[in-house]
């Protein structure tokens, strides 16, 4: 079978629950988030994308790294649960973002073992985007509504069913467990007609990542950053909903004889992020911190990891409480670069 009828998805998820923890989109009141489901019918697949990204599946918002109890001579490492995990219903942008996190956290001279352990146990089943939102700009950032980057299996809606595109060996293993196989077609073909009809909102004009980088690199000291970021309140929501942000803080806690070291998400948008013990802060203003976000994502990441730190999911556009629209910032810089 190379397609899964839509109404059979809950049953399929129930079957997966037998041997896996399954993260799927779940509705909580008015928001949608990726959470572990207890039953296949909990998953909601009709929305275009979740409010927050699924990156907490690999980089939890809070994770205990080390722990010790009274009597322990030394700290003990914490191990994450060892059951296999399936991330179901992520979008191609989210899966692609995880390939960047792989480069940052699993790459380099030191491998983040906590991230790697979760990575080794994770299979990603994404659903391609037949109806991108107007806030999506994945295509401009090198992805696309049917990109397979980072997914193990990519599902594609087609007349009430999901065509199966097997992408990796890990995907093939899961597919055979589910009794499905590759559809043998190029992902995205089924919706080509619909694309032509509605146009492709996922590719706003004016954002060319290469031209953008050059323009940004030349604009570091430009006073325009103050005007661009004037409305920013430094709340950090953009970092928290982003699928490719990775900054974290490490905090120690002690209570009643036992101690632990945790890591928690953090954001370069917070003033305290770079503040040194002496009180000196290399990024003392909101404008300097907003500049760091843009420079890091659209210039430094390209230098260090070969891809931009943004996959164009548009969540920061939707969730920013003051409507500071990153697309407008990028278009403005890309336009300067063209001059």
């Amino acid at each position, binding site marked *: 079978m190379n397609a899964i009828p839509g109404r059979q998805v809950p049953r399929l998820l129930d079957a997966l629950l037998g041997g896996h923890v399954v993260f799927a989109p779940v509705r909580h009141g008015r928001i949608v988030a990726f959470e572990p489901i207890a039953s296949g019918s909990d998953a909601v697949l009709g929305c275009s994308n979740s409010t927050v990204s699924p990156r907490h599946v690999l980089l939890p918002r809070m994770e205990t790294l080390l722990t010790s109890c009274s009597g322990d001579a030394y700290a003990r490492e914490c191990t994450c649960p060892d059951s296999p995990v399936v991330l179901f219903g992520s979008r191609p942008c989210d899966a692609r973002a995880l390939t960047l996190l792989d480069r940052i956290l699993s790459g380099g001279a030191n491998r983040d073992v906590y991230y790697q352990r979760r990575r080794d146990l994770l299979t990603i089943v994404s659903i391609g985007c037949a109806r991108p939102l107007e806030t999506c700009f994945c295509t401009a950032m090198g992805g696309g509504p049917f990109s397979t980057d980072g997914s193990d299996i990519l599902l594609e809606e087609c007349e009430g069913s999901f065509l199966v595109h097997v992408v990796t060996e890990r995907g093939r293993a899961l597919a055979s467990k589910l009794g499905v196989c590759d559809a043998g077609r190029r992902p995205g073909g089924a919706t080509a007609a619909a694309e032509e009809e509605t146009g492709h909102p996922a590719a706003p004009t004016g954002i060319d990542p290469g031209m953008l980088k050059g323009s940004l690199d030349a604009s570091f000291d430009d006073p325009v950053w103050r005007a661009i970021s*004037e409305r920013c309140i430094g*709340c*950090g929501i953009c970092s928290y909903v982003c699928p490719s942000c990775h900054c974290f803080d490490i905090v120690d806690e002690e209570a009643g004889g036992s101690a632990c070291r945790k890591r928690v998400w953090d954001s370069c948008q917070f003033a305290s992020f770079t503040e040194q013990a002496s009180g000196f802060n290399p990024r003392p203003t909101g404008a300097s911190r907003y500049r760091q976000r843009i420079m890091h994502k659209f210039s430094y990441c390209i230098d260090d990891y070969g891809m931009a730190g943004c996959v164009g999911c548009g969540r920061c556009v939707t969730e920013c409480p003051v409507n500071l629209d990153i697309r407008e910032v990028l278009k403005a810089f890309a336009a300067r670069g063209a001059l």
Partner: protein
Amino acid sequence: MSNADMQTGIREEAARLLAEGRVDAVVGFEEGSLPMRAAPCFVSDPDGADRLVWNAFCSNNLSRYLRGSDRRLGVVAKGCDTRSIVELIKERQVARDSVVVIGVPCRGMADPRLLSDKAGPGRITSVEEAGDDLVISANGGTITVRLDEVLHRSCAVCVRRNPVLSDVLVGEGVPERPGDSFGDVAELSSRDAGDRWEHFSDEMSRCIRCYACRSACPMCYCTRCFVDDTGPRWVGRGTGVGDVLSFHLMRVMHLAGRCVECGACERACPMDIDLAALNRKSCADVERLFGYRAGLSPDAPAPLSAFDPGDPQDFMLEPGQG
């Protein structure tokens, strides 16, 4: 007066203030980049005043931008925004003579999430105003709703829609809401403790510790928030219910007597948590104990900063003593 007329009035006032050099910039709203959004903006020359808009989506509390400003600012302020300005002046975070308040009476702002609920599945392409109604364009058709049906929670229980102070007033006053406005607090308080615990644990289970509530709040201006202290560490940084509730409850305590119920916190929250409920309980308590409601009177001293021998002391004395 319609929002369109108010918009004209705001533009005229802003242009005049800038042309006369009375302010360096005017903080107001401009057209958002998405449907159902208006974005805070800074206009610093008279010609730029044409960017300013006034509509049912001007919900941000702009008084937040007055803190620590190195410029003389004009600010477009609704009733709740002026309440924040009153408190910020009391706490010496804003100098009265360094701001020009363009007061705007407000009928309430629309909640985009409620509008999306009304529109059903599919994308809203635009929302236009027609008197007291909003016309939603979605899925190739339109739906008309009354503004009253889709107000933000904070607007639905607002007790001060007209500016408390202003240098310039745009538009006509709007009638204030009659009756006891802490009905929501009374309802929640009447539930038993187990129910309340379950309600708040459930709401807080979504908290991702992003601190947007803190950043959006006009009264949270500490340069070093208690959350960032390490010696001692007052509250854990984790996402477990204990740490999360501790953070929010501590923030409520820090806002006691200062929160003006503007709702900026819950509007900023990306996880749609009912944050204002806890703050409103504290506002109700402060009103009951001290007869004070933040931001409504520029002259009334802040209750937790000023001691009056008549203040109730039954938290530490038996009734009848002292």
